[in-house]
């Protein structure tokens, strides 16, 4: 038994972990899809009326019936659900009612813009957080940094967005107020997302950073004559990264799902805006498509997190991977 297991375990273990991971991912996606379906079908409101452009138009009853039939909305819910899941299983996200195009295309068109914004916001947030943590030395400075971080973390993103838009976009006209053109148009939205997030990150990491600073190995490093900033950057910070990483994993998804307001204020294209339209028109395929997209982002973020965990703290190799 022992001998045998000694040979097979490592592979078995890894294979098992990957398998479990995939299974879990699939389960999550399936559940998300089903919930989205259920939710949108249980809520009152007939998508067809929305498809046909709203109540102030004059679609004939035949038109309504035709539309209902085209999207299978005239079938019993159970059948609709069955078809829906079957379609998903075959990798087909379906056709958006309101956008008159395949959901996959919508995601392909709008996903990159949102992901780009999300990525730049995340990077900026990390930059801010790390700077504030590493270079706020001394009791007074640290206290100040703490307060600032708390303040930043407390800023509502959209409020910040509006104020930035007003100050830098309208009054000073330093940055373009709107659009998806070029990096400069990315600056304001990025800042309005990154500043609160950065404050949050810093707040989360600072505690473990301060703990790390009192560890013996820091004393050892000092006793080596290593310069203070290097000690903070190379030794202490690394021990503070883990909470920041797991927070980011959460933030990634949150940015995609709830970035709609920012996208609207800066008239940016993106998933959030698309989600808003879809939600307003009860566009089931599109809503669930986007929910699946977000779920996927979360799952990938989770995997990335675990990978980073091991990179940052190799001792975890055993438990994770």
């Amino acid at each position: 038994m022992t001998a045998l297991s000694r040979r097979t375990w490592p592979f078995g273990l890894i294979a098992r972990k990957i398998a479990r991971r995939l299974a879990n991912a699939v389960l999550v996606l399936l559940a998300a899809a089903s919930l989205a379906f259920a939710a949108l079908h249980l809520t009152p409101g007939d998508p067809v009326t929305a498809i046909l452009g709203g109540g102030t138009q004059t679609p004939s009853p035949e038109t309504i019936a035709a539309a209902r039939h085209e999207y299978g909305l005239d079938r019993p819910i159970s059948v609709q659900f069955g078809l829906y899941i079957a379609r998903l299983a075959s990798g087909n996200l379906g056709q958006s009612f309101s956008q008159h195009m395949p959901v996959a295309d919508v995601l392909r068109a709008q996903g990159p813009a949102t992901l780009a914004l999300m990525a730049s916001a995340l990077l900026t947030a990390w930059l801010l957080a790390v700077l504030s943590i590493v270079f706020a030395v001394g009791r007074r400075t640290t206290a100040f940094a703490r307060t600032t971080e708390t303040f930043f973390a407390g800023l509502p993103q959209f409020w910040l967005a509006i104020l930035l838009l007003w100050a830098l976009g309208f009054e000073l006209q330093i940055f373009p107020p709107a659009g998806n053109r070029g990096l400069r148009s990315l600056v304001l939205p990025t800042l309005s997302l990154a500043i609160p997030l950065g404050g949050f990150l810093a707040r989360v990491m600072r505690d473990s950073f301060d703990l790390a600073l009192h560890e013996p190995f820091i004393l050892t490093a000092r006793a080596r004559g290593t310069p203070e900033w290097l000690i903070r950057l190379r030794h202490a910070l690394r021990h503070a990264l883990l909470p920041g990483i797991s927070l980011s994993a959460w933030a990634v998804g949150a940015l995609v799902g709830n970035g709609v307001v920012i996208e609207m204020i800066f008239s940016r294209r993106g998933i959030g805006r698309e989600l808003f339209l879809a939600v307003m028109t009860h566009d089931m395929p599109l809503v669930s498509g986007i929910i699946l997209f977000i779920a996927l982002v979360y799952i990938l973020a989770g995997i990335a997190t675990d990978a980073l965990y091991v990179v940052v703290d190799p001792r975890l190799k055993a438990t994770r991977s």
Partner: protein
Amino acid sequence: MNAISDIGRQDAVLHVDGLSVAFPTPQGLHTVARDISFTLRPGQVVALVGESGSGKSVTARSLIGLAGANAGISARRLTLGTRNLLNLAPSDWRSLRGREIGMVLQDALVALDPLRTIGQEIAEALSAHRWGNRRSRIQRVHDLLKEAGMPDPALRARQRPHELSGGQRQRALIANALALSPPLLIADEPTTALDPTVQTQVLDRLLTLRRNGIGILLISHDLGFVARLADHILVLQHGNVVEQGNAARLLNAPSHPYTRALLEADPLRRPARAIQPARTASPLLSARNLSVRRPGPDGMLRDLVSSVSLDLHPGRTLGLIGESGSGKTTTSRIITGLMRPDQGSVIFKGQAWNGPERSITERSRRPLRRHMAMIYQDPLGSFDPRWTVHDILADAVEAAGRPVTGETVTALLDHVRLSAAIAGRRPRTLSGGQRQRVAIARAIASDPSVIVCDEPVSALDLSVQAQILDLLDALQRELGIAYLLISHDMGVIRRMCDDVAVMQAGRIVEQGPAEIVLRTPSHPFTRALLEAAHALSAPADSHHIVETRAI
């Protein structure tokens, strides 16, 4: 002592004259080290000895400029070689550290950055002083590790502390301190909380360094260990030097009572336990062929414990000794029914207490629980942070199904020689010794027939250790409790146990009555343990060891 400080002042590595360290507090200046003077010459070892709070560490750190930003340091004279250490600028300190003064602290597991390879750590000591280039540094690191007696340095350099054995770890730590071969090495508790065998390795390493002419300032609470190394000893108490002088003289004829107390506290220097006639009565608790197998870091199944069998007789103490990771704690968790073994069985008071069978559940154990209590290595963690001492004890009494009154709690505190006054306090505000006493009080609250003590004193100062051990001893005599005592410290075992079981890599390699196992060890590992223990206590020529051998 003047003699010492006068001779060869010029070639002194370190000259300290009238050093005092003080910290500001809201109540005003608080002096933690007062008027300390000594001279350290190349190839010499000066030791600062004292218990926690004696100010020895602060003194050491003030010599390397790390006593803290707001530390007030004053001295008539403070020179490193020819260099004056008083009021140096931070940058000057930095250039000194590592190059002129190396420092080693405690266990490398915490003293080296656990996230970085020891290679990176040691290389940093070089790069911090712009020594050589990347390649030459790597080479230098390998040389240092080889020099430190590390097998296969190239490989080790790429590993992290937790991947190394205790001994290798400490070697790496010392190599890191000596990277730029400074003339002065400060070793702050270099062996605390290490296994004896590792301690001896560190000891050997330090001896070599001394032979190589490096001046070593040794900080320790353990006179026994210091005795093996130091030429000159300063005994500190509450920041004052109560006694200092030549090591041999000071150890053989301690003049100050505190010094004597310290010496007496060393368990190895105290009389071994009076032999108890082995009872024929059936064992109170007996474990048979306990085995536990778990997947290790690499995913391979490893035996944490394999076919361990023990018998614990009423009123006797069974010592379980072994090094960290030898499976002591796993065994104790099985015996206390906190963990289910893969194989084997535990019979307690004639009933099935633990085993792989599903029939044995916590529920079935509960009626017997009150007869078995535990004392943990870290008492603080075992107390609910929200609770006062009174809550904790009351809870234990209640668990034993006895009525809780103010008296019962007071009585318990009295049993463990604590004043009833602390009943209202939370453990976090108590000293280590007091905490452990509370833990003991909780253990005896249900007046159990067995108490399992897992490393009950390893975290304490020697003198406190002695008191706690005495207390356990007394309680055993008063209440006839049987102890299962788990420890890595031969001294403690020898002091407390009637029977001894020696564990190595999850197996019991030797077992029997204490006097036999400890006097005529049959298994090489047991012998190694004993030698390590003796090597670490007072010099071989001193009479104490002879006595221990005579047992």
